[in-house]
């Protein structure tokens, strides 16, 4: 579960998010809507320790977002940006990048596990031999999602992920995120995505309101 209790975030003297309270149950699919600069991205960043909380408490799985817990909290979270930045290497190297870090060394997935994850996301295993930079936007996003699944992430933070996708990629990404057991906190303006989420929040000038 994720909870925000009376959270206020300011940066350089400007309040970006004011007195925000809400909670998300495990498995819920939630979308935040609002104009650019309204505070949506700040909320996502605060969840992963990327914004300074002036007042209030944010909790993920019962742990407060504090320096002593941040590493454990980050283990559960995956961030999927609108345009994932990939390396100049192959898709296989990008997919397995986290397993080069000390935290996951020796825990590399098997070929069968990789294939199962890719097929769940309707990705052809042949793309693993391609350079990541040559993949389409939709393939890159699905590659990032596949990486998060291989890392056993439980919460997906999705930032405007559907804006630049072709219909096939969109279907694959929607189906996976909506049908999986993962908790999804997203930012989107896509009416189709907004219509299919469990809960919709709008944020305006840092103030949050839930749409009924």
């Amino acid at each position, binding site marked *: 579960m994720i909870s925000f209790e009376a959270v206020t975030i*300011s*940066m*350089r*003297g400007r309040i970006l998010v004011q007195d925000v309270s809400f909670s998300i149950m495990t498995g819920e699919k939630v979308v935040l809507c609002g104009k650019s600069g309204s505070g949506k991205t700040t909320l996502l*960043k605060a969840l*992963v*320790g*990327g914004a*300074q909380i002036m007042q209030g408490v944010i909790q993920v799985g019962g742990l407060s977002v504090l*320096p002593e817990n*941040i590493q454990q909290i*980050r*283990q559960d*979270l*995956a*961030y999927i*940006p609108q345009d994932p*930045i990939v*390396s100049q290497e192959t898709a296989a190297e990008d997919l397995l*990048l*986290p397993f080069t*870090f*000390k*935290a*996951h060394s020796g825990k590399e997935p098997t070929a069968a596990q990789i294939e199962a994850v890719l097929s769940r996301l309707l990705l052809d295993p042949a793309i693993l031999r391609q350079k990541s930079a040559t993949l389409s936007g939709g393939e890159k996003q699905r590659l*990032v999602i596949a*990486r998060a699944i291989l*890392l056993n992430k439980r919460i997906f933070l999705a*930032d405007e992920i559907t804006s630049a996708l072709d219909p096939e990629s969109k279907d694959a990404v929607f189906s996976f995120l909506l049908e999986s057991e993962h908790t999804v906190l997203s930012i989107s303006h896509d009416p189709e995505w907004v219509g299919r989420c469990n809960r919709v929040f709008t944020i305006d000038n840092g103030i949050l309101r839930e749409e009924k």
Partner: protein
Amino acid sequence: MEALDIPLARFALLYLLLLLPLYFLQRLKLGLGREVLISVVRMSVQLFLVGIYLKYIFTINSLLLNILWIVVIMVVANLNILKKAGLAVRKLFWPSLAGVACGTLVVLGVFLFLVVRPTPLYDARYMIPLAGMLLGNCMNGNILSLERFYSGLRKSESTFLSYLLMGATLKEAVHPFMREAIRSSLAPTIASMMTIGIVSLPGMMTGQILGGSFPLVAIKYQIMIMIGIFSSLVISMVASLYLSLPFAFDSMLMLKDEIFAGKKKG
């Protein structure tokens, strides 16, 4: 052999030579005349003052005075590095100074104690110009590497954050940014080593030859200085970048805004 001294009257002719480029700049309406004149006056005054200072420092030839001079130029170089890299002096002064000191002193030590071995080892005629040459090059390289590293991190915050979310430690998450900053900052030095002697005769070697050294001796010094510059550059870049990390990130491992010049906390 000694270099021919230039009598003052003939030396003054050099300044007349400037009339030619100034004329062209004027015709092209570049508006650089005033700036050029100020820079020529500054260059001349600074070099005369250094010449007078070095004359005394060479005569006195004291270990303490030599060390003091090197410390002063290291501090000046460090302030320049941080200013030009757009970073806050009060936040990164010490780590950046330590990085510059590592790169300069290690290589200077090798030069004086193992390769050249002047008598005494701290002979100002060797210690001061060699330190100055190493520092000047470290300064330019460190400006590039620090600027590229920290501005790269700031521009690609979401990429950096995604590395942390993938389980990377701070060192693992900054590694790609560090690699890119060092690679691009070293490119000019590597390119100059490739063409040295073909396209250009380096200043130090030219100076030594004009000063009466045999070309083969001058070449040895030039090779020594090129290897030294490259080594001190890499050592100081890597040391400055790594030593600055604990000062540049907060307890959540996020880049502090206040490390950039002109940014205040909060």
